[in-house]
């Protein structure tokens, strides 16, 4: 067991834990944050994506040991921001949500991309979403939603 301090959704937290736990399990079990999903459990689907020092990572592939002193933001924390509101409206407008399983990961991927590149090209959006699988939409609506968010939210990122 070891003590791990990190920021979770803007709040400093401290846990006594085994270092070999996955960040995904810590978020689910210790903090009851269930917005992120375990899809493949192998880093291929992006359903468990969170922001790690403001960059997308798959929480199923990160040991909690690596999170010491990091800033972790889940979809729950992100949903309190004005950027989230813009993305949510854009996803709704463009019909980018169907079953919803991939959506938290898609929103995290969109935020990670727009934070670095506020005016991405279609190709750059595709690269930004390349680690997130969606079996419903065919991706086109999600790409359009991010283009819409970038336009509507100009200056926010």
């Amino acid at each position, binding site marked *: 067991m*070891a003590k*791990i301090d990190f920021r979770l959704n803007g709040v400093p937290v401290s846990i006594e834990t*085994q*270092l*070999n*736990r*996955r960040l995904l*399990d810590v978020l689910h079990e210790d903090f009851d944050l269930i917005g992120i999903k375990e899809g493949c*459990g*192998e*880093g*291929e689907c*992006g359903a468990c*994506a969170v922001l*790690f020092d403001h*960059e*997308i*990572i*798959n929480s*199923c*592939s*990160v*040991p909690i*040991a*690596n999170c*010491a*002193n990091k800033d972790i933001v889940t979809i729950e924390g992100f949903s309190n921001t004005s950027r989230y509101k813009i993305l949510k409206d854009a996803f709704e407008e463009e019909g980018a949500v169907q079953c919803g399983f991939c959506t938290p990961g898609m929103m995290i*991927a969109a935020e*990670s*991309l727009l934070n670095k590149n506020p005016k991405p090209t279609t190709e750059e959006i595709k*690269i*930004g979403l*390349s*680690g*997130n699988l969606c079996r419903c939409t065919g991706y086109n609506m999600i790409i359009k939603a991010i283009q819409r968010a970038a336009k509507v939210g100009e200056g926010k990122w």
Partner: protein
Amino acid sequence: MVKQILPKNLSEVLELISKEKYRFCAGGTDMLIQNHNLKTLPIDFKDNIIYTFNLEELKGITEDEDFITIGASESLESILENKITPQILKDTILQMASPAIRHSGTIGGNIGNASPAGDLLVPLYLLNAIVQLQSLKGIRSVLLSDFITHVRRIDLRDDEIITKIIISKINFDKHQFVKVGPRLSDAISKLSFLGAVSFHEDKVIDLRFSFGAVNITVVRRPEIEAQYIYKTKEELKNSVDELLEKYSEYIRPIDDQRSNKEYRKTVALNLLRNFIEEL
């Protein structure tokens, strides 16, 4: 019970590994998956583990006149985004995994894993990368192609850790990295090819090829490359069949769940042919 250590600094790591055997976990993107078993969560590591991802001494990308030095725990994405990273390395990283995995996966991890399909190894072999290892006894530098000895086997002593990767600063007139996988991202290579060439007044002055996932480790044959130095572009193009025949001996892939040996060999040699013919 295995020990798990989150070290404060490199000195602590060197002390620990001088006394007892440990494995290193950097980004964890491979180690967590390899040891993942839902019945035995948390991750069921069989060895003592030291977590190295956040070690300050293993971070940083610096350059001097001739060399670029990359800390072993630098993530693939931070290497991709760094201005001083050579384009040949960036082109490869862009085809690896996905942004999420690239934020966690590290250069030291990709080398330590020593997978025949490790994509980053392909440009690193081509750039004659040197792996720097540190122990309490001092620093040892090894050519990457000597460091990787077999499938998933490396020349790392029990008291050593990979600290830095050093590549020479070099630009080519043309380079091309091609990765063949089942989809564009998050795919493990069926095979990969990297060619690089430079000319001076129509004569070849530098020519390098490396192939991934077609042998126990990356295939690079400097003695074949050297035979074509000072040939003209036309002469090089005219010798393409002979060149393919020479490489054919070393392209010895296997059948596995991702592909089969006939496909791998045919495509690898076709990619070499295309590269030469399109010069």
